[in-house]
C-alpha cells in the first residue's frame, strides 16, 4: 500500500520531515555548487576537478581531527586561507596555461587534474573511508516532529551566508565589478586597465576556497575517500545549469530544487529514480531555458 495515500497527523509529520530534509540537503548542495558557479561564470571554465577539492577539504578535516584533535568547525576557518592558496597555486601551475585555450583543451585539463588528485589521495591516504567523529555529527535536533542533524543546519546556514556574502561582493565591491566585467568582455576589461589574469587567479582561488571550506563543513556528515568528490560533483553541474551559469542566487535555488526532486522522488518512487528525475530536469532546462531557470536570456553566452 502506498503510505502517502493516507492522510492525517502522521502524514503532516512526514511532509514536514521531507520539507526539512529538502532544505538541509539543498543547503549542502548549494555550499558545494557556489564555488563551481563562480568559476564557471567568470572564467568560462568547467572545472571538472571541483569535487576533488571538496575531497581534499574533507581530508583536511579528517587529518586535523586525527592528528591534532581539531574540531571541523575550527578547521573551517583555517581552511579558507589554505584553499585560497591551493587555488592560487593550481591556477598558476595548471589553469593559467589553458585559460585562453579551447573548451576541449580545458575539459581535458580539468578532467586530468581530477584524476591526478584522486590518485594522489589514493597513494597518500589509501582507499579507506575516513570519518571524523566530532560531537556535532551526533547532535540531533528535534523540532515540531521533525529531526535533523546539527551539522546539516550549520552547513545550511553557512551556505546562505556564503551566498549572500558572494552576491554582495560581486555586486557592491570594486573587485566584484571587475570580476563581472572580465566575464562579460575580457578585452574591454583589459582596455580599462584590468589585469584579467589576476582576476582569473583571484576567481579561481575564491572558488576553490569555497569548495575546500565546504569539504570541511560536510566532513561530520560524509566520509572522506579518494573519490568522495564524485558523490556531489555531478549534482553540482546540474545545479549550476539550473540556476544559470555564474548566478549565485540561482545556484542556491537550483540546489533546493535538486534536493526537493531527490527527497520527494526517493519517498514516492524510490531512491533508484532520483538520478533519472534530476537529469530529466537538467535536459529540460538545457533545451527550454539554456540560461537557467532564473537566468537572464542571452546571458548563457556571456556569463554574468
Amino acid at each position, binding site marked *: 500500500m502506498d503510505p502517502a495515500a493516507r492522510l492525517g497527523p502522521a502524514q503532516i509529520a*512526514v511532509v514536514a520531515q*521531507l520539507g526539512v530534509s529538502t532544505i538541509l540537503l539543498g543547503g*549542502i548542495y548549494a555550499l558545494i555548487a557556489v564555488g563551481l558557479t563562480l568559476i564557471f561564470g567568470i572564467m568560462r571554465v568547467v572545472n571538472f576537478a571541483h569535487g576533488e577539492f571538496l575531497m581534499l577539504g574533507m581530508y583536511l578535516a579528517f587529518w586535523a581531527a586525527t592528528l591534532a584533535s581539531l574540531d571541523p568547525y575550527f578547521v573551517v576557518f583555517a581552511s579558507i586561507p589554505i584553499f585560497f592558496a591551493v587555488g592560487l597555486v593550481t591556477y598558476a601551475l595548471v589553469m593559467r596555461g589553458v585559460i585562453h585555450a579551447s573548451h576541449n583543451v580545458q575539459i581535458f585539463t580539468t578532467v586530468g587534474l581530477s584524476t591526478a588528485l584522486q590518485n594522489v589521495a589514493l597513494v597518500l591516504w589509501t582507499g579507506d*573511508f575516513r570519518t571524523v567523529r566530532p560531537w556535532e555529527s551526533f547532535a540531533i535536533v528535534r523540532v515540531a516532529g521533525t*529531526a535533523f542533524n546539527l551539522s546539516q543546519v550549520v552547513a545550511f546556514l553557512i551556505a546562505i551566508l556564503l551566498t549572500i556574502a558572494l552576491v554582495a561582493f560581486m555586486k557592491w565591491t570594486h573587485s566584484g565589478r571587475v570580476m563581472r566585467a572580465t566575464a562579460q568582455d575580457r578585452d574591454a576589461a583589459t582596455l580599462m586597465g584590468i589585469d584579467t589574469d589576476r582576476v582569473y587567479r583571484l576567481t579561481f582561488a575564491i572558488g576553490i576556497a569555497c569548495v575546500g571550506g565546504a569539504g570541511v563543513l560536510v566532513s561530520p556528515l560524509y*566520509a572522506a575517500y579518494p573519490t568522495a568528490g564524485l558523490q556531489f560533483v555531478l549534482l553540482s553541474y546540474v545545479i549550476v545549469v539550473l540556476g544559470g551559469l555564474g548566478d549565485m542566487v540561482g545556484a542556491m535555488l537550483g540546489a533546493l530544487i535538486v534536493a526537493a526532486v531527490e527527497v520527494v522522488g526517493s519517498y514516492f518512487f524510490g*531512491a*533508484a529514480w532520483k*538520478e533519472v528525475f534530476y537529469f530529466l530536469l537538467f535536459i529540460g532546462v538545457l533545451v527550454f531555458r539554456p540560461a537557467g531557470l532564473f537566468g537572464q536570456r542571452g546571458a548563457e553566452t556571456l556569463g554574468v
Partner: protein
Amino acid sequence: MRRRLVPAVAVVLALAGMAAVTWGQALSGEYKIGVLEPLTGPLAGEGKRHLEGFEIVRDLINERGGVMGKKLAFAVADAPDPTAAASEANRLITRENVKIVTGTFSSRLCGAASEAAARHNVIYWETSCVDPRFNKRGLKTVYRTEIDATGFGWYNVEFIAKHLAPRFGKKPNELKIAFLSEDSSYGQGVTESARQRAKGEFGMQEVALEYYNFQTINDFTPIIVKFKQLNPDVVHHIGYTNDAPLFWRQAREQNFMFKALVHAGATGYGSSDFGKALGADGNGVFALLEPGPGFKLESLKPEGQKIEKDFRDAVQKRTGSYPLGSHQLAGSGLWLLKLVLDAAKSDDPEKFHTAVMSLDMPIGSMINGWGVKFSETGQNANDRVQHYMLQWQNGQLVTVWPEEFTTQRAKWIPLPAWDQRK
C-alpha cells in the same frame, strides 16, 4: 665517473647471474602456480592481504610435503583492473607456463581473469570473488571455493528465520522485512536471493524493496521516513561503503526503531571503516562474514581444528593479529586446492575435475570450519561453506552465530532504544 661505472655494472651483472643460477637450481623441485592479485590501485590494500593469506598457507603446505610431491611456488602478477587481470593471466600461462591460476580477491577481476585462463584450457581457482555470474558462463576449468552473493542471501535468511525470529517471539512468516540495497551486481545478487528464500521458503512479509546507487546517495531520510511508516521487524541492508554509516546515523536521527539490521559481506557494515566511523554507536548491526573473534576451535572436526589452529598461529606470527577476511578466503581456498591436487596427482584438467567432484567433506573439516562439495559448474555448496554472523559490539565485530561455533552471544535482540545499546 664513466670509468668507475663500467666495472660496477659488470659486478652487478655477475652477481645477478650467480643469483639466477642458484635460483634456477632451487626451482627444479618446485610446482609453480599463477597468482593474480590487485597489488596497485584502489583494491591494493585487500589484494596484498589476500596475497599474504596465500603465502602463509603456501608455507603451511610446503611444511606438509607440498603438492604432488613438489614444493609449491607462486608466479605473482599485479591485476589492478579487469584488462590487466586478463592480460596478466595470459602472460602467466604463456610465459610462466603455469597450469593453474588462482586469485583475485575482487568480483571486478575474477570474470576477466577466469575467462582468459579457460581460453587456454588452464584451471582457474577462485577463492574470494562473489559475482553470481562467475559459474554460470559454461567455462569448464573454472572453480570457486567461496560461495557467491546468492549464497550470502541464503545464509542471511537462515539467520533471520532460525535465530532472530524465535528471539523476537515470532514465527518466520510473521516477520516484516524491508530490503534495502546498493545496486551493484553484488548487492542485487544478495538481495534477490534473500528475497526469494524469505518469501518462498519462510513466507516472510516483504514490506519494502529499495535499491540505490552507493556512489550518489547523500540522504537516506526520505527512505527512512517511508520505512518508519511500514514498521519492519528486520532491515536487510546491503551497504557498500559510506552509505552504511550514513543510513545507520540517519536512522538514529529519525529514531527509526526496528528489531535488527542484517548485512552480508566485507563491504559497508562488514568493513572495519564502519567501526571506525561509529564506534559503540554502531552496536547491534549484524554482518555475514568469515569467522572472527569468538570462533571456537573445539567445534570443528579434528582435522579441521588442526589446520585452523596452525593457520591462525601462522597469521598471528606474521601479522600480529587474528586472521582478517582476506587471509581467511585466500587461506582456505589454497588449502582446498592442495587437497584436490593430492587426490588428482595431476594438473590435467580432466583428472583435476574428477578429483574436485570426488571431494565430499562435512562442515568443520578445514580452515574457517568449511566443508567441501562442488557442483558440476565448479561452485562449492552453500551449506558446506559455512558462513558466520558477526555483530558489532563496542567497536568490534564478534562471531555470534551459529552458536555452536562461537563463545560469543548476540546482544540487543530486539534492538532497544537508540541510546540504550551499551
